[in-house]
């Protein structure tokens, strides 16, 4: 009795102090949009977008990152790095339990990194490629032994990028087909309850969450609504309170923004770093000559594309790297990336390179493939057709469904130019190298070097960029890389996409993490 009283008192005082400090409310259901419905819930096997919306509420990472890129300790309390950058020691949080009651230990970390992420995660083999072994001297210490320094690794410990999974539910099984995929057991603030196919995924509050007093919400429900106009209506009606990754299209978002109870933000995407771009086939077809690719980049009015097609959300690209890498001093502004497009200069380049216009003003014909992810991209293709017509390149547009398009571009290399977008992720090693390295010409693998561009000087620079622990030297290396790419242009970057999160102002506290919608929502509450 006394003990019960004491616990109640403690809980009560905790709540009182929480109320006093920030006036957060406990309880309530947050219903948000998950679009499209995810194929599975195995975030350790697939980085597919909708999985990322759901799973970081259930699985946690060693760290999270705030909007300034600073590391927030989650499952790790702290880390220390040896002087040569080859040994990283993590001190893990004590008293953390999986949702099934088993303790979380360093054995889970070792298993997750070496047996799961390094083997079956799409990006894990790259993020942790230098990790040769992990020592676990006690249950709460994990020592990563690296072959080479890996500065980018410290940016990939979020719950979305590297979720920590329970060893006891995966060990001895085929990780990719283990039942954990659709019955996740994590350490996070919310527990998996139910997945009604075609309707919703329901998560309930984890009453035993390690951070006392969190989370505030009783329940999170991710809803699937296939039709974009209905998603907007559900948002207007207050049936859903949060819609990230353009689940509510820009055209509606700019209208909803005018309402008092709905707001729009572009925060929460800096770790994803999406870049719209054109990939060229550099091995065969009309775009083998880099001069043509430079002319194309010069002719494009990036500002027009952003303002007209994407309702002003986006930043013109200025180099092969996103300007978000300015935070780590890796971005440098390059030539051949005009904001407004210069048709005369582009024509001059083509004239000089000897591509004469015929009687109809046509220098060459080509087919432009368009990423089949919706109307915005189709319109981008239509703009490009017109803009390229101005410099004598006559384009035919081709818009296919996803499997056909992937097969064409990444299996058969049966394309000439292709509008696409890539996630550049929190470090170029993770998101940009895959586009340009010779070792990234991997037929049949999606979203890698489909241009089949190969340059040994660049390969050497990319290699040193991934191993260089010294920040200043790294800056210099990436400047060289960007200079080469601005000249050869196997890929022409168009603009940095700014995804929109539309949210009901009743929802507070969901915006502190740089991961945005891929965050845990442990501090989210309803006003």
């Amino acid at each position, binding site marked *: 009795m006394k003990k019960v009283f004491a616990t109640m008192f403690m809980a009560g005082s905790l709540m009182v102090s929480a109320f006093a400090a920030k006036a957060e409310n406990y309880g309530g*259901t947050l*219903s948000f949009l998950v679009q*499209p*419905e995810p*194929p*599975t819930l195995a975030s350790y*096997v*697939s*980085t*597919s*977008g909708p999985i990322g919306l759901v799973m970081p509420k259930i699985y946690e990472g060693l760290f999270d990152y705030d909007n300034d890129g600073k590391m927030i300790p989650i499952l790790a309390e702290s880390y220390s790095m040896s002087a040569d950058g080859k040994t990283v020691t993590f001190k893990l949080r004590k008293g953390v339990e999986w949702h099934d009651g088993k303790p979380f230990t360093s054995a889970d970390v070792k298993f997750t990194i070496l047996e799961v992420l390094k083997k*079956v995660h*799409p*990006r894990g083999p790259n993020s942790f490629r230098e990790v040769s072994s992990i020592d676990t001297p006690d249950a709460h210490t994990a020592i990563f032994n690296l072959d080479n320094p890996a500065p980018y690794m410290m940016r990939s410990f979020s719950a979305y990028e590297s979720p920590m999974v329970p060893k006891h539910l995966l060990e001895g099984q085929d990780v990719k*087909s283990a039942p954990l*995929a*659709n019955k996740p057991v994590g350490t996070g603030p919310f527990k998996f309850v139910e997945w*009604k*196919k*075609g*309707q*919703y995924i*329901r998560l309930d509050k984890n009453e035993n969450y390690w951070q006392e007093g969190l989370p505030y919400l009783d*329940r999170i*429900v991710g*809803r*699937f*609504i*296939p*039709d974009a*106009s*209905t998603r907007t*209506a*559900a948002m*207007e*009606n207050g*049936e859903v309170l949060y819609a990230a990754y353009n689940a509510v299209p820009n055209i509606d978002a700019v209208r909803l923004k005018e309402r008092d109870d709905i707001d729009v933000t572009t925060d929460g995407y800096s770790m994803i770093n999406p870049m719209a771009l054109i990939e060229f086939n550099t091995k065969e077809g009309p775009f083998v000559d880099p001069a043509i690719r430079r002319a194309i980049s010069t002719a494009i009015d990036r500002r027009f594309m952003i303002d007209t097609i994407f309702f002003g959300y986006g930043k013109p690209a200025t180099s092969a790297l996103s300007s978000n890498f300015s935070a780590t001093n890796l971005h440098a502004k390059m030539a051949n990336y005009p904001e407004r497009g210069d048709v005369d200069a582009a024509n001059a380049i083509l004239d000089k390179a000897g591509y004469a216009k015929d009687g109809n003003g046509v220098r060459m014909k080509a087919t432009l493939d368009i990423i089949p992810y919706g109307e915005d991209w189709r319109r981008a293709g239509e703009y490009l057709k017109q803009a390229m017509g101005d410099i004598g390149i006559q384009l035919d547009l081709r818009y*296919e*469904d*996803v*499997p*056909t398009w*992937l*097969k*064409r571009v990444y*299996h058969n290399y049966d394309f000439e130019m292709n509008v696409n977008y890539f*996630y550049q992720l929190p470090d170029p090693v993770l998101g940009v190298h*895959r586009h340009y390295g010779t070792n990234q010409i*991997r*037929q*049949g*693998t*999606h*979203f*890698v070097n489909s241009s089949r561009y190969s340059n040994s000087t660049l390969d050497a620079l990319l290699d040193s960029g991934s191993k260089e622990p010294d920040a200043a030297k790294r800056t210099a290396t990436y400047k060289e890389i960007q200079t080469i790419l601005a000249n050869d242009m196997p890929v022409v970057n168009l603009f940095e996409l700014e995804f929109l999160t539309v949210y009901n102002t009743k929802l507070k506290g969901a915006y502190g993490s740089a991961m945005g919608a891929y965050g845990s929502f442990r501090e989210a509450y309803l006003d």
Partner: protein
Amino acid sequence: MKYVVKRLVQGVPIILAIVVINFFLLNMAEGDAVDVLAGEAGSATPEYMAELRKKFGLDQPLPVQLMVYLKNVVTLDLGYSFRHDMPVNELIFDRFSATALLMTSTIILAVGFGILLGLLAAMRLNTWKDAVITVFALITYATPLFWVGLMMIVVFSLQLGWFPTSGMENVAAFYEGWDRVVDIAHHLVLPTITLSLFYLALYTRMMRASMLEQYGQDYVVTARAKGLTERRITFVHVLRNALLPVVTMAGVQVGALIGGSVIVESVFAWPGLGMLAFESLFARDLNLLLGIFLLSSILVVAVNLIVDIIYCFLDPRIEVN
């Protein structure tokens, strides 16, 4: 009874033929389930993809895949959906109830009101009532389904706030028992009305025309000569005969209803089979798609059998054999 069994036996080769044709048609599409899965995952190694293909049996030659599939179908096993990581039977069963609910309520509403309005229009030929019904039928027939759905949402959910915009249940509340039934019925109203409107218009027009045609028949003249009341002529003699084409049409359209419901299911986020079929096509989830096609072909065969039986009740002259 003998007739029913005979028809059922005849249905089997038809359904098998449908399965085989669907199988080859679907396999003509570029790309497979593995391409889509790997594409969504962002990046995947060719080894991993080869391994997946082996696991899914997609590395086998097509005729072998077909034989394996047919063997499974005969044992009532529709295979495994690799995308959903679930047996197809389970997935379809889960979604079929939502579709069945929407279809049944739609058919009842469309056929019931269609017959009623058509009857009314025919009985009040060339009056304002007839004009109103005919114009209403023409407009609803000509309006695209998705637009009607969106307008329903704008008017009845956003402006008036009478009905929820989408879904099948209130996910903030998670009702149980009778409250849940009421909640689902509440969510069912807008999708049903939207999906019914098109068919309602069709049946109204058909019923009206059919009634008028029957009024001109010799037996009506005979009935009048016998001194029967107009009321009795209309409801006992003309109505029964006029229903035949409407019932035939309704039977044929049950199959089409599944197709038409893709749009309504998508607009109202109704978790039915149409939506599942639509998604699985883009995911190249062929096992699931074949399963849905199989189910709908069985449904069409069954409904047509029921329609034939209804014929005998409507018109005793028709004999079933």
